[in-house]
């Protein structure tokens, strides 16, 4: 995590425009008991790194209601899902809009249907993901120049989203934990860029979208940065981890 902070700072330093930092879910909790104790630190670290939004995955919903409510409440970033409801529960929003110099970017979160049982235990419901994203994209028509989906779906559903939901510019994340370098696929209304950062926080995806003066994406440049020791530990992040009893 200390390397991730360094890498994100490097992206911010080198970027020629605004930088959005997002997470595509399955992040706060893991399968083992040990992996379920780190959520407070993970949220604090994401706050410190200036995250804008996180999509909800199955592993955001594995803890008890009080625990999940506390973590979502501590987040200074938006917790997004277009298909987890009822609307407004636990502060979950379907999308986030960010406006920059006359251009508006929409971030839509979408949750895997595999989260249904976990969600039900918290009194939540997971709706059809593609229907939900389609509905939100239609709602955003005329409001956003660029539409990015923070996807917790597997590769097959992401592929279907490209062909069945018009209006999306990029789908980020999940794909079953695979690392996927950015590539473009023809969708109903033009190219959709897909990219996934890979498993267990071992890398970050960096995707730059170039817009023309009409707000259309005309080109892109993407890569996955593997967080090798060549990225020095960020001292602020090290201090934060130590406060939570974790050594980097």
């Amino acid at each position, binding site marked *: *995590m200390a*390397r*991730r902070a360094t*890498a*994100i700072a490097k*992206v911010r330093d080198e*970027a*020629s*425009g*605004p*930088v*959005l930092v*997002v997470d*595509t*879910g*399955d*992040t706060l909790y*893991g*399968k083992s008991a040990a*992996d379920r*104790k*780190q959520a407070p630190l*993970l949220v604090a*670290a994401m706050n410190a790194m200036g995250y804008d939004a996180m999509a909800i995955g199955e*592993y955001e919903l594995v803890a008890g209601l009080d625990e999940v409510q506390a973590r979502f409440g501590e987040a200074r970033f938006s917790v997004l899902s277009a298909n987890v409801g009822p609307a407004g529960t636990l502060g979950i929003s379907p999308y986030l809009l960010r406006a*920059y*110099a006359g251009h508006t970017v929409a971030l839509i979160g979408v949750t895997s249907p595999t989260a249904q049982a976990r969600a039900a235990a918290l009194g939540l419901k997971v709706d059809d993901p593609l229907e939900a994203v389609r509905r939100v994209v239609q709602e955003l028509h005329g409001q956003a120049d*660029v539409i990015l989906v*923070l996807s917790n779906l597997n590769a097959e559903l992401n592929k279907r989203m490209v062909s069945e939901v*018009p209006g999306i510019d990029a789908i*980020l*994340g*999940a794909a079953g934990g695979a690392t996927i*370098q950015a*590539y*473009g696929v023809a969708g*109903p*209304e*033009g*190219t959709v860029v897909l990219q996934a950062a890979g*498993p*267990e*926080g071992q*890398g970050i*995806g*960096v*995707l*730059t*979208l170039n*817009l*023309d*003066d*009409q707000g*259309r994406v*005309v080109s*892109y*440049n*993407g890569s996955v940065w*593997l*967080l090798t020791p060549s990225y020095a530990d960020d001292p602020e992040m090290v201090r934060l981890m130590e406060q939570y009893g974790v050594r980097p």
Partner: protein
Amino acid sequence: MRRWLVGFLLLAAVLVGCRVEEGAPTSYPARTPAAPSTPGATRTISPSPVRPTTPAAGKVDFTITVVHSGGVVGKVLPCG
């Protein structure tokens, strides 16, 4: 005369064979999935037939960068 004719036929056979070989592929290789981008390479997106283009289309006016993580599954590793 017979030798000349045999030679001519052999030459013709070779030429026809070469021509057949040159034009042999009648089908194209199966399309492979879109190749991953080379890190650092900028890919241009063709104008969409649905989103109408203007003469200004293609000129970069604004750039936005998205950093994304995911699938951390509760692990606080030195890297991610």
